[in-house]
Each structure stands twice: as structure tokens, then as C-alpha cells.
């Protein structure tokens, strides 16, 4: 009878499974996530949308349902995204957006599978590494027919590949210098200003390092993401102007890399990986044992909770010039979406409307990539840190990462060589030479 019971259960399950299947494949396609505004396609509405897309009223009034998939809201901000959608739906009652939020770590495996399998959402979010690949491989729709003038133009340019706009910057962040005021007071030195160079920072770091064996002066990760920006601070770049050649081991780049590496290997104002134990850089700063850290503005809310000392920020020090990092996630539209116009409307609204921006800032989520200063001013009013203007001043020196098709491969190779240099087994110059060699042999640029 036990077996009979098992068999019966199986039958019930089978019936349940077949019955419970809700949507079929085609509906899933239609409910694609909302991506940013532009869906250009050969549909009839495209001709109309060129002028009407700029209006905030819906272009077509047929009810349509789209799907939008993102990872940025995961962790804490799903409710904020939901309230944004409510506002959107008030203004565009005929567009229904089904929002999916998925954790960051497996988001891209999942998204790639869906794109390759043909069930990708109407619009979705991508980070820079993946944007490069998706845009170069023809799975994104061109974004046009919407008014993007309210969006920060540098950010917008980052998602323009070969003259075609493939994504809209959804939010953006940059990197600033966060410093521990108490440690600076202890060492008796002046706080960093927005005009500091790395030489100034080095002096301060050495003074703080002298405060104790387990106290360090500065931390800036020695990775590709940091390197391309620091290189720009010394006038160098990873590729030549038209992206046909790698220039990784140029003299300016070598100066930049040497500076980064010697902080660890020579003056040890920055801890080696062994000295870090298994603590992360934020953990080190939060424990009060680090004077300065170059990290993203997304750290503010975490530091506000966890730091028991006084801290503030400044624009990141420069070399021969200032250059600051630009991180952004892109909203993109699926090239196979059947509702490109609605999808484009949603993502453009999400990225640039005043309503969405205000909600975003009020929740302390991240910074919308817009130019409307009145909205951005509300960001300035939140503390800590006090010197929030530094965030906006940093925007004046933005450097955009070089988007190429094999972006991830390039960043992995460079990070690998730089970490070797950081252990002291090779010099920064050797590391860059090796990187240049490996890059030219494994990656073909246009």
C-alpha cells in the first residue's frame, strides 16, 4: 500500500505540474522586461515615435504588457523599484510592466541562457562588461526616438558603440577618496582636498602608516577597473584612439602602474593580501585601521552604519591630471522584443524622469545619470558624508572604460598581471609588457 500511495502521489503531481504551467513561451516573450527607451524597429509606429517619443504621454494607447529584468534592486531596493513603477503606471496606464529582480551573482548566466534560448525579457539591465559583449554581438536593439537630453552625456556615450546607441545609463556611480578623519587628526595632518595629487596622498599615507603596525595609510585596489582610470590620470590609456591597437605598456601607463604597485611593495602604506588576512578593503576601513580608501559612492550607506569614527570624502587624487571612474549599469532593449516602443518608454522614464530620480535619491539607492541639478541637489542634502559636492565635482573628470568585444578577457588578463606585480614577483613594467603581449596574441581588435 505504501507503493500504491507513492504512485498515487506521483499521478497527482503529474496532473498538478501540467495544470500549473501558467504561461507558455510566447507570453513570456511578450512580457519581456522593460529596457530603456529605445526600441527602433521596422514597425509602423517607429515613424510616429520619432516626434512623439519626447512627449511624456504614451505614443500608442493599446494596453501592452512588457517584462523588465534587473539585478540592481536586489538586496534592499525592490520596494523602491515597485513604487517607481506605480508612478510610471499612473502616467502610462496602458503599459504594464512585470518586474523581475534577480540576485547579481547568477544574473548573467541566466540572462545569457534566456537570450540564447529566445525567451529574453523585453528590456533588462546589464553591467558594463556584459554590455560590451551583448552590444557587439547583435542582440540589443538600437535606442532611438526618445529624448535623451536630460541624461548625462558622458554616461550616454559610454553605451554608444560605433555610433549606435545601444543602452541608457540607469544609474551611475563613481569612485571617490573616503578618509578617516580621526586618523588624520591623530597623525596631525590636514584633510585631503579636492585638488590633491597622489604625491600628497602618499605623504599623508606614510604619516598615518607610522601610527601603528596594523594601521595602513591608503587602499586602492590593484585591478583592471582601477588601472584604466589611474592610467588616464597620468595621461595614458589602454587602447589607441580608434581602438585598433593595445597600448597597455606605454610609458604613462607604466608610471601609473608603478605608483599603484609600489604603494604595496615599497612603502607598504597599502597592505599586501597577506596582511589583509581575509578581510575585505571595506572591512579594513570600517575597523578604523585604514586612513584612506578609493572606493565607490555606493559605500556611503554601509559606512554610515558601520563606521564608528568620523569620515568624509574628497575627489580622488590625480596624477598629472584628474580622472575619475565611471560605473554605470545600462538598460537595454531586446532586439527581438515585440514591444520595443513600450519598453523604451519605460527604461527612459526609469533612467531620466524626475519622479524616478527623486525616489532613487530619497531611498539612498544610487545616483540617477541625469543632468537636472535641482533633483541632484537633494542628493547633496543627505549626510554623511559632509562633502557630497565632491561626488559631483568628480563628474567633471569622468573617464569611460574602453568598450571592446572581448572586454572580460582584456580585464582578466590585465588584472592577473597586475596582481602578480602586487605580490612583488615581477615589476609593474614587466607586468604591463606581459599583458600587452598576451592581449595582442589572444584578442583581435577591429
Amino acid at each position: 500500500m505504501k507503493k500504491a500511495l507513492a504512485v498515487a502521489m506521483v499521478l497527482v503531481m503529474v496532473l498538478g505540474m501540467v495544470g500549473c504551467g501558467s504561461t507558455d513561451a510566447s507570453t513570456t516573450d511578450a512580457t519581456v522586461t522593460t529596457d530603456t527607451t529605445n526600441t527602433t524597429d521596422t514597425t509602423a509606429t517607429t515613424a510616429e515615435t520619432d516626434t512623439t517619443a519626447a512627449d511624456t504621454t504614451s505614443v500608442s494607447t493599446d494596453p501592452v504588457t512588457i517584462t523588465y529584468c534587473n539585478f540592481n534592486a536586489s538586496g534592499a531596493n525592490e520596494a523602491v523599484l515597485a513604487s517607481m513603477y506605480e508612478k510610471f503606471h499612473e502616467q502610462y496606464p496602458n503599459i504594464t510592466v512585470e518586474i523581475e529582480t534577480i540576485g547579481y551573482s547568477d544574473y548573467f548566466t541566466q540572462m545569457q541562457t534566456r537570450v540564447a534560448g529566445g525567451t529574453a525579457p523585453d528590456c533588462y539591465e546589464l553591467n558594463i562588461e556584459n554590455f560590451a559583449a551583448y552590444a557587439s554581438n547583435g542582440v540589443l536593439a538600437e535606442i532611438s526616438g526618445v529624448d535623451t537630453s536630460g541624461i548625462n552625456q558622458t554616461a550616454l556615450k559610454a553605451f554608444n558603440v560605433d555610433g549606435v546607441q545601444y543602452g541608457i545609463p540607469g544609474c551611475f556611480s563613481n569612485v571617490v577618496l573616503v578618509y578617516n578623519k580621526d586618523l588624520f587628526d591623530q597623525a596631525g595632518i590636514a584633510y585631503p582636498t579636492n585638488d590633491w595629487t597622489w604625491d600628497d596622498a602618499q605623504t599623508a599615507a606614510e604619516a598615518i602608516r607610522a601610527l601603528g603596525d596594523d594601521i595602513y595609510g591608503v587602499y586602492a585596489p590593484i585591478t583592471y577597473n582601477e588601472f584604466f582610470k589611474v592610467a588616464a590620470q597620468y595621461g595614458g590609456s589602454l587602447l589607441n584612439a580608434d581602438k585598433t591597437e593595445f597600448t597597455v605598456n606605454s610609458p604613462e601607463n607604466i608610471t601609473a602602474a608603478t605608483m599603484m604597485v609600489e604603494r604595496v611593495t615599497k612603502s607598504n602604506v597599502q597592505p599586501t593580501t597577506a596582511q589583509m588576512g581575509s578581510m575585505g578593503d571595506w572591512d579594513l576601513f570600517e575597523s578604523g585601521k585604514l586612513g584612506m580608501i578609493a572606493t565607490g559612492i555606493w559605500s556611503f550607506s554601509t559606512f554610515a552604519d558601520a563606521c564608528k569614527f568620523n569620515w568624509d570624502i574628497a575627489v580622488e587624487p590625480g596624477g598629472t591630471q584628474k580622472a575619475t571612474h565611471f560605473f554605470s549599469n545600462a538598460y537595454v532593449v531586446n532586439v527581438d522584443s515585440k514591444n520595443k516602443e513600450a519598453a523604451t518608454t519605460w527604461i527612459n522614464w526609469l533612467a531620466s524622469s524626475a519622479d524616478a530620480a527623486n525616489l532613487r535619491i530619497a531611498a539612498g539607492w544610487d545616483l540617477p545619470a541625469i543632468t537636472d541639478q535641482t533633483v541632484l541637489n537633494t542628493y547633496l542634502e543627505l549626510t554623511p558624508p559632509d562633502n557630497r559636492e565632491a561626488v559631483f565635482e568628480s563628474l567633471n573628470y569622468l573617464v569611460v572604460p574602453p568598450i571592446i568585444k572581448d572586454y572580460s578577457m582584456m580585464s582578466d588578463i590585465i588584472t592577473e598581471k597586475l596582481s602578480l606585480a602586487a605580490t612583488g614577483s615581477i615589476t609593474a613594467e614587466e607586468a604591463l609588457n606581459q599583458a600587452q603581449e598576451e592581449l595582442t596574441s589572444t584578442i583581435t581588435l577591429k
Partner: protein
Amino acid sequence: MIKNKAKSVLFHIVALAVGMIAMIPFFWMVSTSFKSQGALMTLPIQWIPSAPTLEAYTRVFSMFPFARAIFNSLFIAVSYTLITILASSMAAFVFAKMQIPFANGLFKVYLASMMIPTQITLIPLFVVMNKIGLINTYGSVIFPSLFRAFAVFMLVQTMKTIPNDFLEAARIDGANPFQIYRKIMMPMCAPTIATLCVTTFMDSWNDYLWPLVMLSNKNFMTLPLALNQLNGQYATQYNVLMAGSLLSMLPIIIVYIFAQRYFKSGLMAGGIKG
């Protein structure tokens, strides 16, 4: 008497020592789940939180439809396990005890199926599922349980050790294959089946990538998927994640305890009587 007592004490010392080593990460998980957001990753490790709080647990319950996720996970894992046991034991019976042509070759195919990394078959399998129309249905995560080479292999090994005399005796008594399967093979494989119940349930319960890809609809979200939403682009809320993971381990432990009943030393139940 004293010798027994001493042996007992020695046993417990050794077992406990090894057990502690096995459990260190678990202790860390428990400790972290009672910490507040700020105090998470200090070195040296704080085993006992200085300010223990239940905030991680309250967040877990409030963050997503926990009950729904548990129901989905339970429904899927139980169905998956039952189907695996049934389908795999039936197939194992053939491989272990029946002489048919191609059996050897087919068994090799079963083994071979375990040798291809799932990362490569992910997209082709997705395309196949899409064509059949199983995407976003419970079936997409349950039907694959029909084919589990691991379970078949394990059962074959156990079934091969059952002496053929029992089957011969039953055949002479006029039993058909299904009765032999039910009354001899299955009972004599009880420890193996109990083990398989635990491992299969655990695999299905903890499976993350496959449900992620197959079940994008919120209503079908399973517990690991719900927990992984805590994974942000820049920071992960470890205390909430650990609290959720600990809660997620409970059902598997319950299955394990339940399966223990079948771990009897020296099992020959039902075999002799036929």
C-alpha cells in the same frame, strides 16, 4: 564493563573532535546570523556576537513571500525525489538483474551522461524545454528527475549484491517481475534508497541555477532563489543570507532524520521469506 566504558568515552572523544572540525563553518553561519549588519566581517572572528540580534531573521521573513517559496521548494523537492526513486530503481533492476541485449551499452551511456559538465548543456537543454513548452512550469524542474544516472548507478551496485537465489525462488513460486521488484528488490535496498532520498532531496532543494533559468515567474520562486536576491552588485547582506540558509537547511535535516529509520545494521528484511 570498564573496558566498554573506556571504549565508549574514547569513541565520543574522537567522534566529537572530528565532528567539531566538520561543524566550524556551521558555527560561523549561526554566529553571523545573529549579528547586525555592521559587525559582520571582523578579524579575529567574533564567535559570540557582541550585540546579538534577531534582525536578520525578521528580515528574512519580511523580505519575500517566504511561505510561498517554501511551498514551491517542498512541492518540487518531494516530487523530484519520489520520481527519482521510482524511475531509477526500476531501471536499476533491469541493469542489475536482467539479461537483455544492449543493457551493457545502455548502462555505459548512463555513466557517460555524468561526464559532461552541465554548464555546456544548459543552453541546449533550455532550448529543448522551450520547444516542449515546459518553461515556467513546475514540470520543467521536476520531469528531469526521470533520468538520474547517479541514482541508477548506486542502486545497481546494491542490487547486484542481492543473491540471485532469492529471485529464482520467487520466480519458481510464480511471481512476476513487478512483484519481485516490489517484494524483494526494494526492501533489500532500503538503506540505499534511504540514502538516495536524502541526497536527491538535498540536490533538488538546493538547486539554484536550473530553477533560476526555468522559473522566472515570481509565483514559482523556490527558496534558494529567494535567498539569492540578497546578493547585490556591490554588497551582500551576509547576516540575512546566513539566517535564510540556516532555515533552508532544516527540511533536509528533517528528511535525514526520517531516513535514519531505514539504516538498520545488517538488513535482510523479507528476503528469506520471499
